[in-house]
């Protein structure tokens, strides 16, 4: 059977991370499974962990009055779910729901923050990885906001459908 450490090492988020850091991080990790349709967390709740998705799909949702529940992003195997555990006030900004059976590794945010305080090199390594993901998501969100396929949001006529 593969150990949790091996699974962590194989996840793209931790690719290339030194063995000694993995050994520290594994102490904060647990395996979790979410059934199809299960809510993983809700907006406003305390963000005490993040997830490395290994299999399945998770939808980030917001509720908009008069429209209903909107999915604003989906995350798949290899993706990271959640960074609100990193920054105060440590609250989730969206709901997260498993769209299908989802397997993930949960990392305890408080445990990880403590270890990062004790070892700033580890903290810096993790922050670099999160910064990259946050930047990618920010770019994607900007593109989404431009509504490039909408009637108004395009600079070319093929801004269609």
């Amino acid at each position, binding site marked *: 059977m593969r150990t949790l450490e091996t699974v962590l090492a194989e996840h793209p988020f931790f690719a290339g991370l030194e063995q000694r850091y993995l050994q520290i991080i594994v102490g904060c990790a647990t395996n979790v499974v979410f059934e199809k349709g299960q809510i993983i967390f809700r907006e406003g709740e305390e963000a005490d962990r993040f997830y490395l998705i290994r299999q399945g*799909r998770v*939808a980030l*949702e917001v509720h908009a009055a008069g*429209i*209903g*529940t*909107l*999915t*604003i*992003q*989906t995350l*798949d195997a*290899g993706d990271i779910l959640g960074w609100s555990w990193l920054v105060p006030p440590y609250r989730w900004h969206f709901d997260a*729901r498993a*769209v*299908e059976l989802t397997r993930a590794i949960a990392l305890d945010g408080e445990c990880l923050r403590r270890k990062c305080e004790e070892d700033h090199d580890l903290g810096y390594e993790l922050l670099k990885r999160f910064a990259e993901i946050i930047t*990618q998501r920010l*770019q*994607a969100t900007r*593109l*989404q906001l*431009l*509504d*490039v*396929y*909408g*009637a108004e949001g*395009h*600079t*070319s*006529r*093929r*801004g*269609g*459908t």
Partner: protein
Amino acid sequence: MVPRPFRLRQVRRETSDTFTLELEPADSAEGFCFRAGQFNMLYVFGVGEIPISISGNPANPRVLTHTTREVGTVTKAMGKLRRGDVIGVRGPFGTPWPIEQAEGADVVIVAGGIGLAPLRSALYHLLAQRDRYGKIVLLYGTRTPGDILYRRELQRWRAQFDLEVHITVDRALSGWRGNVGVVTSLIPRAPFDARNTVALVCGPEIMMRFAVLELQRRGVPPSHIYVSLERNMKCGVGVCGHCQLAPFFVCKDGPVFSYDKVQHLLEKREI
């Protein structure tokens, strides 16, 4: 060049604001040969003439197919046409997708919105010659699930051929079980060998710019990335200058360009 009359043999609604016209020559039995990626100037009599890509099968010259999104005067008038009506056609014009040159390589198609229309012609060809290519991957983004073009055909192709199809939408109500996110987010994990890949990209220009960045990040060289550009057009044959993009006339030197040729132009403003 005088428009040739074509009769509508079928009009199909694709989505709330797009439709596909199937046309046949009204003047003779002579078919219409074209290469995937080329476009025609379509003339709605008494309204106006616009460039529209050919979205049909290049191996079938008996039917001429165009998919159009209703945005303004001419496209809306075109959307009101019915079976049996006649429109004028000039073409085919412009450069095709480099599908013959791509033989032996993986082919990644990145389409946004109505940008899938000219790429469908390429897909017909690629799938007809399936064994000549490595992986064929279609990454397609639209605004919402209701805006997905050619839905049934894509499902059929996916089941029938060795074709990877990944669709994503910018937003969806919670019943949608597919991907939500911009089309560029599909590129990092799409299964292709970046060093031996030809990428064909068509959609809104901003989307294309970001898609190209992601393709380059994956290691696809700019000379292997092809984009289909759009500028206002009038003559369609490189005479009037309406479609000029610095040294190029998009109607004649394009619409399909390898990215290394136009990179410096697309990164500048106001051209």
